[in-house]
């Protein structure tokens, strides 16, 4: 656990980890953001919480009772 290591060892681990992270390959947000947007648009048709669902198809619709209109 973190508590068992000395401050120096913890810092060494942190430095090693940071060195690795600096080298991580990265992509521009204009590209990745677009991919997120594209994913949403592609799946939006299946997203029932987004589109709403007609009462008669909703498995959680109110049970029984009468509708007074």
């Amino acid at each position, binding site marked *: 656990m973190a508590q068992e290591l000395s401050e120096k060892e913890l810092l060494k681990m942190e430095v090693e980890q940071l060195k690795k992270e600096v080298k991580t390959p990265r992509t521009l*947000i204009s590209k990745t953001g677009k991919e997120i947007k594209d*994913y949403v648009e592609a799946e939006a048709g299946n997203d029932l*919480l987004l589109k709403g669902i007609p009462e008669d198809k909703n498995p959680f619709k109110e049970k029984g009772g009468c509708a007074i209109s």
Partner: protein
Amino acid sequence: MCDQTFLVNVFGSCDKCFKQRALRPVFKKSQQLSYCSMCAEIMATDGLHENQTLASLKSEAECLKGKLEEERAKLHDVELHQVAERVEALGQFVMKTRRTLKGHGNKVLCMDWCKDKRRIVSSSQDGKVIVWDSFTTNKEHAVTMPCTWVMACAYAPSGCAIACGGLDNKCSVYPLTFDKNENMAAKKKSVAMHTNYLSACSFTNSDMQILTASGDGTCALWDVESGQLLQSFHGHGADVLCLDLAPSETGNTFVSGGCDKKAMVWDMRSGQCVQAFETHESDINSVRYYPSGDAFASGSDDATCRLYDLRADREVSIYSKESIIFGASSVDFSLSGRLLFAGYNDYTINVWDVLKGSRVSILFGHENRVSTLRVSPDGTAFCSGSWDHTLRVWA
């Protein structure tokens, strides 16, 4: 004169080199030793090196952090909401409580859906774990844990077992049986052992492996059958409060969030942390992968939810409002990833437009903190659990 100090000359064997010399007292880690003058000199200069190394490591770490920020900033050419400018704004949402599950005797702390999209397992502060049929609100199974504060529970992918744990520092698996004569507690299998409370657990793609997160600062992967530790994940500087597995198509990673304000992404096979994000200002209570696996959201005590893009390696969106001052305890995405549902400590659930960064709806109903929230596997509804002892299914 009166204030002369006398050096007491003690002769003996030096504690370091064991040679017979004049000794002087020396303090090492608050323990008193007797060193000869030679070894005392060496120790003094070593100490100096020790401090130098510590200081140089600290400045190296700071320097690397700065470099990391720089590298990340290079990819920040545009904001997410700018990319989504042309996307149609969302209309009004009408989401109501369709079912209220009553039966827990105390705060509901965690819940999970079964893959059959109708069963739910929930756990509570009173030690009870209940399996419900959310369509009928009937309780199908109930087990009492030997500890209170069951902070984590999960449904097995097969639907034939549940896992739970909390202050007992363990994660136990209970096979679900429909035989009325069988006592569920009798078949309990202790799988994970941590040195502090269990905060989160999740089955991987099968019933055979469980991933756990603990107050002891680590996450771990366990084999259910043997209880063997397969991999452990060290790196958080404080309690780990939450975890989420990447959607199976995107590979073997998971994300965890902790009291050290960090969200860390791990490679399950090597145990290495591949990315870390430290932009929250307080404990991260909940993390959830975006449905495509390319991003994840987090909810924190700093009253914000944030979206982190894994390929751009940075935070790309913050979901917050000045009027929201209570921590977000739990977050989940709708099926398409357009909506982010977040449960808060001010008893409300806020629904955010992930792309535009704005709030589209606020849901009232719970009478105490919302502690847990999950969207159903097919996205038709979501369930929230609260300290008001109930669970609500919204659609």
